């Protein structure tokens, strides 16, 4: 039985839960370059989907815990909606990585020009970089809270936000560039493969976009 005084506090801090959840996003994101390498080497990528499924279910557990905290405890300085919005966006990153792997298992692109392969791999690295920065941003949020919103820590959080925004913009630029390269191959490649590759690029760009959403939300709530 919980005692009177214990009921004042959450069992675990919401920012810690956000950070733990972001760790699963990071783990999923870390797989992206590896998945792309395996795919273009003609290896089976379905095993990655199983791994990501595991992360997804663990992340769901954390999401439930966070919801419970905000349902049971009455007063908090982060709006319940903000915290849930952040975790929802983080969740969509894991989902999007999972979708990306599943889409890859559906089709095998043959005779894809090396230039496009390299660019897609670069894009994968950039997306992974965005997720890594997003994780840093969530961890920094813990420090911002610990420091009682010290201007120094807020500045660090701002800098991470700028880095993520820069990364996202680079991802977009590279994505468009790859799209152009893909459609330039309309006379050489199978049309299905063209659309397929383009879809992969769009999915990767979306993942980066979700990471940026998380960071932007964090920036908004610490302001």
């Amino acid at each position: 039985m919980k005692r009177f005084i214990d009921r004042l506090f959450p069992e675990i801090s919401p920012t810690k839960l956000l950070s733990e959840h972001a760790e699963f996003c990071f783990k999923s994101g870390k797989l992206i370059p590896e998945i792309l390498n395996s795919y273009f080497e003609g290896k089976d990528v379905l095993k990655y989907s199983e791994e990501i499924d595991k992360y997804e279910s663990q992340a769901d557990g954390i999401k439930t815990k966070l919801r419970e905290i905000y349902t049971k405890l009455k007063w908090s300085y982060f709006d319940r909606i903000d915290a849930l919005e952040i975790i929802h966006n983080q969740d969509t990153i894991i989902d999007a990585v999972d979708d990306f792997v599943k889409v890859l298992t559906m089709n095998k692109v043959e005779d894809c020009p090396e230039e496009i392969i390299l660019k897609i791999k670069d894009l994968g690295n950039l997306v992974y970089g965005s997720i890594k920065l997003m994780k840093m941003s969530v961890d920094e949020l813990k420090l911002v809270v610990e420091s009682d919103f010290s201007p120094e820590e807020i500045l660090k959080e701002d800098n991470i936000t700028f880095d993520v925004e820069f990364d996202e913009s680079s991802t977009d630029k590279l994505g468009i560039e790859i799209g152009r390269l893909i459609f330039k191959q309309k006379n050489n490649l199978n049309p299905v493969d063209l659309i397929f590759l383009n879809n992969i690029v769009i999915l990767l760009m979306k993942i980066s976009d979700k990471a940026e959403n998380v960071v932007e939300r964090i920036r908004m709530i610490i302001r």
Partner: protein
Amino acid sequence: MILIILASIVGFGMAFSIGANDVANSMSTAVGAKAITPKQAVLIASILEFSGAVLFGTHVTKTIAKGIVNLELINNSNYILIGAFSALIASIIWVLLATYWGMPVSTTHSIVGGMVGFGLAAGGFNVINWIVLLKIVLTWVISPLIGGALAFVIFKFISWSILHRKHPAKAAKLVAPILLGLTFYIIGTLFVIKTLKENMGLGNLIGIITAFIVFVLSFIFLHKMSSDKNEYSIVEKVFKNAQIVTSCYVSFSHGANDVANAVGPLALIYIILTTQNFSSEITIPTYILALGGLGISLGVATLGHKVMKTVGEDITELNNSRGFSIDFAAATTVLLASTFGMPISTTHTVVGAVSGVGFARGIEVVNVGILKNIIISWFVTVPFAAIVSAILFLILT
């Protein structure tokens, strides 16, 4: 003689139950923030609860024994003896029932209710010292608010002077000794003025000297700490050390206030039986306070460990800087109330202090809904203890 022995056993039992149960609430933030282990908390509480009870316990004990009921108007020593005994028994019954039901029990409210019940049954409305009772009730409302306000101010001060500095670790090593010095200034000054009954000038002088010594010693100690880690980790480490001191402060203050809940009626019984006089100013014998202090210490030492361990495991998300603010605010509020002879609930003051740090954005999520339990406690405990005490009094007389 039998009555003294019986009252001593019941009073000791009450003190034991305070030690076994209530002390864990007052030490919960220090154990939860991992400043001290449950074992260390038991050791600290065993010594400091006793010291607080003996050195500062007399003020509140006087209020419980003679302040609530106007004994002169009852003018029957047998009635007063039975009444004091009834109040003690009623209080014990309520504490046991409330513990069984898992309710937030306050021994302070129980004993005050018990004394009011006996007074009403013995002499009607006229014998209750309504002004004193009103002051007590007011302090019940005010103490969580003062605890909260003080915790808010202390945390904001820590935030401004340490957390928002360019080098928080360096700032913490200077500010923490200042706060520790302030702690000892308060204890030293109040002890000289209120317990030794010396003048304010001497009180301040002793307080300042004590504060200075503590400042220098803690400054030297904390300065030796390494600064090679993350700045905020060092800040928390500094406050982890400082919180050992404030956990002693909480324990000391708790002993000073709560010993009266156990020995207030016992002191009254003892004084009447030994002096046959209840009309003049009473002096609480130190050995009665020591008996209460011993009961609390024994309760902590035997059963307190398990409760403290549970509390420590449940409160996991509390930083030391926040824990320090809560402990400092709660202990100062309780000690001040003690020196003014006001029986207040340490647990409720801690709840107020936690909310204060929460409102200062020091704790991410605080269950302020728990505050309603405090109000329920006022409206349930006092009438229940009063009714049981009155019924017991009527049966025994």
